[in-house]
């Protein structure tokens, strides 16, 4: 397992690793292209269906056999979907949670990772091992007591249960990733700073963090995706519909407007679009992060 986990870190700095030998002959190249295109069709078809449905009026959407080109382009599906349900509100709610979770995760996980990677203290490795053992536990086991805990505090139906745990390094996998990255930074940097009288906190902030932007980007992208995709959390903790996140709003929209496929697909496209944009700008971190984290989320 660890073999895979450590590989991309090397890949990020080392020159590109080996590739199989180039295909010999035009015949093989042609075959590769044919297969690539043959596979791309079923891969893209559902997304094409999503876009075409989002742009069709309800007259055309139920024509059999189905048509592929919207005529006319029903852009009002988007305005319709966005006004039927307060998606702007859900968007804002999601961003509030995103901001709280992102800042908390990056701060608490990088501080802990810094301590585990660069500072010497007693039983450090034992403590680290215990923290990491938490990865093994399915979330279902802690779900109910955690819910009862927040209920007792009267904080159900607020964003606190969705944000606050992330300020306490609960994304332990992030601690693992950041620690791995911090370990690869030369220790001479810290030592010369300490000789100049810096405190560990200054070393963390002025030396380690600026050198770790790629790792922090990976953690941020995946934390962002985790919040964006989370359905169970908001489902359990949020009761008032004006507090819903996008994922929840979308699901409840699905429940109420079952036959309005133009609207529903437009709404789904709206939830998908920011992720496509994020992917366009941060593709490298997506790919690195998946190679690092496996299938998390």
């Amino acid at each position, binding site marked *: *397992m*660890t*073999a*895979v986990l450590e*590989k991309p870190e090397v*890949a990020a700095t080392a020159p590109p*690793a*080996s*590739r*199989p030998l180039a295909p010999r002959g035009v015949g093989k190249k042609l075959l*590769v*292209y044919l*297969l*690539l295109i043959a596979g791309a069709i079923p*891969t*893209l*078809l*559902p*997304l094409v*269906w*999503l876009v075409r449905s989002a742009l069709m009026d309800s007259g055309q959407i139920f024509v*059999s056999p189905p048509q592929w080109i919207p005529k006319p382009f029903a852009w009002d599906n988007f305005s319709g979907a966005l006004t039927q349900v307060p998606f702007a509100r859900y968007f804002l709610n999601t961003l509030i949670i995103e901001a709280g979770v992102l800042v908390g995760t990056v701060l608490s996980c990088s*501080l802990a990772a*810094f*301590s585990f990677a660069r500072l010497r203290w007693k039983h450090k490795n034992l403590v680290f091992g215990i923290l990491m053992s938490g990865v093994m*536990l*399915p979330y*279902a*086991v*802690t779900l*109910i*007591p955690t*819910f*009862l*805990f927040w209920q007792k505090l009267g904080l159900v139906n607020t964003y606190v249960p969705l944000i606050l*745990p992330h*300020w306490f*390094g*609960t994304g332990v996998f992030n601690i693992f990733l950041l620690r791995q990255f911090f370990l690869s930074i030369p220790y001479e940097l810290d030592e010369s700073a300490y000789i100049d009288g810096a405190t*560990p906190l200054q070393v963390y902030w002025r030396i380690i963090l600026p050198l770790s932007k790629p790792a922090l980007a990976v953690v941020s992208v995946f934390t962002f995706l985790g919040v964006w*995709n989370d*359905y*169970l959390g908001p489902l*359990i903790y949020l009761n008032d519909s004006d507090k819903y996140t996008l*994922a*929840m709003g979308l*699901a409840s929209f*699905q429940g109420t407007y079952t036959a309005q496929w133009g609207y*529903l*697909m437009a*709404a789904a*496209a709206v939830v*998908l679009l920011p*992720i496509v944009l994020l992917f366009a700008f941060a*593709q490298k971190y997506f790919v690195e992060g*998946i*190679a690092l984290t*496996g*299938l*998390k989320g």
Partner: protein
Amino acid sequence: MASSPMKQEARWGVLLALPAIIGFVAFTFLPMIASAVISLTDWTIGAAPKFVGFANYTRMFTADDSFFKSLWATLYYTLGAVPLLLIVAFAVALLLNQPVRGQGVFRVIYYLPAIVPIVANSMLWIWLFNPDFGLLNTLTEKAGLPRSQWIFDESTAIPSLILMSVWGFGNVAVIFLAGLQGVPRQLYEAIAVDGGGAWRKFRHITLPMMTPTIFYSLVTSVIGALQVFVQAAVMTEGGPNDSTLFYIYYLYRTAFTNNEMGYASALAWVLFLVIMAVTVVLFRNSSRWVYYEAGSTR
């Protein structure tokens, strides 16, 4: 200089790790203990918890058909989805690893389905599965096959959800691709010198060198599939006729619809044990087929 720079460093060390340590105790360790204790009670929200010993566990195995249904649905889904997912992802990774022009574009195309947020994805697939106007029946009809009811029929609901999950092969394919790029080139060259063809390269180098990556993906995919939830919650509500009553969804309903916190906690612990058992079995068998390089420290 101060007498104790070491001591100071240790103090900082504990201080900076403290939030994470508190988080572990408060949000992992204590809830885990609490969950075990609650699983021994009959606790409906609003009433006082009552200690019942192992009654919740005996009820599960002797008097709860839904438990077995949910266990079966989850295992069926896992056994179907994981092998298919791994095979498709491996084939795609092999293709994407071929050095041809436009490789980057194809990588983006093949990865796209994996970034669709799960709730949006679920909605898209309800529509694709629509028996009258959906894409899938259009395609099966074109191919001369009979129409299917997909997720709306007891017998095809799980296979349909398996098909949907295979569409998200991109994540696993990326892991495989990273693995393929790490296979040392000299190995292929050695086979080429010996006059071996593409099949021999694949069978004697690519496949053995990839077994650790395959094993890692197998374990994480199985653990993920056993905890499938959103598809049941958004698409099928466990139906039709409980055929997609996935374990976590059943647990969710027990806890948050029926408010049976004690029984739901017992369900959670059984899931934990099932996941542990499956993981142990996978690791036990791994020595037979997972190849680690000689001299590797792992």
